Every structure is written in structure tokens, then in C-alpha cells.
């Protein structure tokens, strides 16, 4: 893969990811936001492919494209939240604080990262056995913690779906 081809592909994928992410935030209905979220997550999987992380890309499709989205929509559909209900809640002040805190944290992470540590041409595909060994030895505990993500997704979906109910 030549560098220029990869650059063009990255431009397309990144643009899709950004537009879809805006869609998540700006959509009026919860289901539209969920659809935008899926598109955005798929675009991120495309970025992983361009970074030669095929395994990560496929796991992204499986976990986020499949499991997380399904759990989210499952909870939405089981709830009474219809398509016309707004997303505004009485928790607006708390949400503002949480959003700002996340934005600051992410902004700090973006600024603090050295993006040019490794030139693109020097990227190498990591073999699957190496990833597996690392996951189950060095990173065993973080791996188990990350596996809570599905639980978090389910609880989060239930919380979104319960918006407007009595506490």
C-alpha cells in the first residue's frame, strides 16, 4: 500500500467518522443517534485497518458493531421511549459537568500524545499469537476490566431508556 493511497483512504474514513460523530450529538431521536454511533464506530474500525491492526478492526466490528449496538437498541426498544421524545433531561447541569470533564481529559490526551513517534511507512503488522500472549500475560487484568464494557453498555442503555421515569 502506497502512502498516498493510505492518506486518501484515511481522509475518507476520518471524514465519515467525524460527520457520524456529529450526527450522534446533534440527532433529535435516540435511534438516529444510535445509528450514527454505529457508522462512527465502523469508520474507526476502518482507521484500525489503515494502521494494519486487522484484528483490532474485526473485534471493533464484532463488539461495537454487533454486541454494544444491539444491547443499546434492545434497551431502547424495551422502554417506552418513543421516537418523538426529546433527549433533554433534568440532569442537564450534571451532564454539562461530565461532558466538560470528558472533553478536557480527551483534549489533554490528544495534546500530550506524541503523534509522530513512528512514521507510517515503518508500521508493521503484529502477528496474532503475539497479541494473544500479551493479552493473557502482561495485560490480563486490564483485559478483564475492559470486558466490563458490555455490562456498562447495558446499564447505560437502561439508564437512557428510563429517562423521564420516576427516579
Amino acid at each position, binding site marked *: 500500500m502506497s502512502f498516498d493511497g493510505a492518506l486518501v483512504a484515511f481522509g475518507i474514513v476520518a471524514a465519515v467518522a467525524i460527520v457520524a460523530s456529529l450526527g450522534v450529538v446533534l440527532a433529535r431521536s435516540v435511534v438516529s443517534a444510535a445509528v450514527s454511533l454505529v457508522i462512527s464506530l465502523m469508520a474507526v474500525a476502518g482507521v484500525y485497518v489503515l494502521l494494519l491492526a486487522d484484528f483490532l478492526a*474485526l473485534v471493533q*466490528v*464484532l463488539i461495537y458493531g*454487533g454486541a454494544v449496538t*444491539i444491547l443499546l437498541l434492545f434497551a431502547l426498544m*424495551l422502554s417506552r421511549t418513543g421516537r418523538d421524545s426529546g433527549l433533554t433531561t433534568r440532569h442537564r447541569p450534571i451532564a454539562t459537568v461530565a461532558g466538560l470533564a470528558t472533553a478536557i481529559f480527551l483534549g489533554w490526551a490528544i495534546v500530550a500524545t506524541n503523534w509522530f513517534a513512528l512514521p507510517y511507512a515503518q508500521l508493521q503488522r503484529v502477528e496474532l499469537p503475539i497479541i494473544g500472549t500479551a493479552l493473557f500475560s502482561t495485560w490480563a487484568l486490564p483485559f478483564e476490566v475492559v470486558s466490563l464494557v458490555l455490562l456498562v453498555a447495558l446499564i447505560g442503555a437502561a439508564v437512557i431508556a428510563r429517562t423521564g421515569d420516576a427516579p
Partner: protein
Amino acid sequence: MIEEAIRAAVGVFVVFNVVALSVLVLVLLERKFLGRLQQRFGPMRVGPHGILQTVADALKLLLKEDFTPATADRRLFQLAPFLVIVPIFLPFVTIPFAPGLVVRSLELGLLYIVAVPVVSALGFFLAGWASDNKYALLGAVRYAAVLVSYELPLLMGAIGVVMVTGTLDLVAIVEQQAAWPLLFAQLPAFLLFLVSGMAEGNRTPFDIAIAESEIVGGPFVEYSGMRWSLFFLAEYAGVFATAALTALLFLGGWNGPLLPPLVWFLVKTYAVIIVIFWLRGTMPRLRIDQLMNLAWKGFIPIAFLNLVVTGAAVLIGGPGPGSPLVILGGLATTAVSLAALSLALRPRRRSDVRIGFATRPGDDVADRPPAASHYSIP
């Protein structure tokens, strides 16, 4: 670079068309086969012995009105069929039909094939939700329950194959089965994979998500014409994919004496397809609680048992489809699992045997106190 791109484009075009055309064959095969099972002929009118019936049906579907209900969410309603069909067709890119006869062999082929079709669940969901129809929504919710339940045994069955062969590359997996198909070493995984594949593909008797006699077609009850036929196409392409994968992973793929590899692959694939149709013709549809019980109390424990036994056998006796210890472990796991399953799923009381409608008061779940109800999901 450009040559590679052209080769890929032509390959994708050919494979997708072969799959779409084989759907026509599958539909006719199913109707004829089901007809024979029921002592009738099946379609007989269009062409000799009705062989042009599905062609006529397909043409009719293309000409029908593409209707969108007034209360539906227009954009999502029209988008949903494509979200279903595209992820179902994508795996065919990396399915090897014979040595060298594959559009693109991937090192992570197996992971790709099980990961990508999951996205089509989103299409089912949106179809069910956007239709603004209670049956469609019920179907969508049921499909979510089926998918969440059966994805686990499906993946764990595939992991058993990976443990024995040590690779995710489909070509390498098939090549290792030259002498011994994995069917023997991974008998439990084979059963889990086939049944879970049928459940996820909404095949009767596991098709509670579309169940014509209960929720009149589920997520696509409001669809017509072209968009409805996309759902239909996806279902049969899914059957083909499940059968082809079962043939590749467990039945040795294109390996076989005398006949050319492609013929062997097709023979095995169609044998699995016939089994799928056969089950449809002979088994009554499971209720939702039975289906959930089968997955969570039956298949998932069996899948874990299979992983533990396979892991131990591979560790002690060495990997490979012909490794005696692995085969022994697989057979033992199957025997134990089937015994446990038949014990666990047997009706406990006389009144638990309910086939069809309740005939006496107290037989129906609705007549019991809520605590005794098995129905946790609509």
C-alpha cells in the same frame, strides 16, 4: 496495484452473482424438498416440474409496488434492508470454494466471517423499529434476544476449531483436514455451530423472530416488493453461508477422493443445506422460552465444556484434526452433553408438556401465578 483492484472487483462481482443465483436454486430446492416431505410435489406449473417457479417469483417481486407506510420512519425504513443484505454478502469474499478459488484469502478469515454478519442484526432492528408496527417491533426485540443468546455458542464453536487447527485462515483450516475432517475432533462444536447458525439465520424451527404464525413475519411485516425480497435474499444467502462454513470448518471443505475439489465442496455444502431444510420440515417451532433455555442452559455450558476438554486434549495429546486424544475428548464431550441436555430439558411435570394450545385451565402460562412464568421476553 491496479491489476489487483480489477481482480478483486471481478471476483466480488462473480461471487455475489453466484450467491444471488444460488438463492434462486435454494428456494426452489426448499419448496420441492418440503413438498416431498409432505407427500406433495411442490411447485409444478412454471416450466418443466416447476423449475422456473422462483424465476417467475423473483420477477413478480421486482414489479411489485415498493410501499412505505405513512407512519414509518421513512429514511430508516428504506435503509434497513440494505443494512441486512450487505453484511450477509460480505463473508463470501473470503470463503474458499476450492484451492485458489477465493476472492481474497485473509489471515484472520474466520474472525472476519463471524464478525461481519453480526452487523446485519442492526438492519433487522431498524426494520422492526422504523416500521411503526407492533409485530415488527416484537420481531426485532425477539431477534435481539436470539442474537445475544446464540452468538456466544456460535463463536465458541468456532474457537474450538481454532484451538485444534491453530489458525484463523480458512484455507489452512481446510488443508489440515485432508485426512481427518474436524467433525470427529469437534463434534460438539459442529452441533453448536450448525444450530446457532440456523437460529441466527432465522431458520425454522428457531425462527421466533419472524414466526409467520405468531407475529406474521416480524421485522419485515410492512415491507413489499424489492425491499422485501432483499430480506428474503439475505435469509437464503445466510443459509448458504452457514452451510458453506460448516462444510469448510467441520466436513473437510474441498477434500475428498476422485471428484474435483469444487464438486466436493458443493456436495458437502448442499448436504448441510438439505439437513437445514429437513429440520424445518420435521420439527415444530420452539417457543421463545424453550429457545432461550436451549441457549443459556444447554449450549453455552456445553460450549465451555468443549473448550476446556479441547484445550486439555490439545495440550496433552497435541493439536490437529487427527489427534487421537482430541477426537476422544470430542466424542466424550458429545456423549456427556447430550445426556445432560436430555436430562435438563425433559419436562418436569405433566402440565409442562404443552404442545399447541392449552386444553385445560392451569395449563397455559397465562393462567399461572407470575412467579411460575417462563416468559421473560416478549
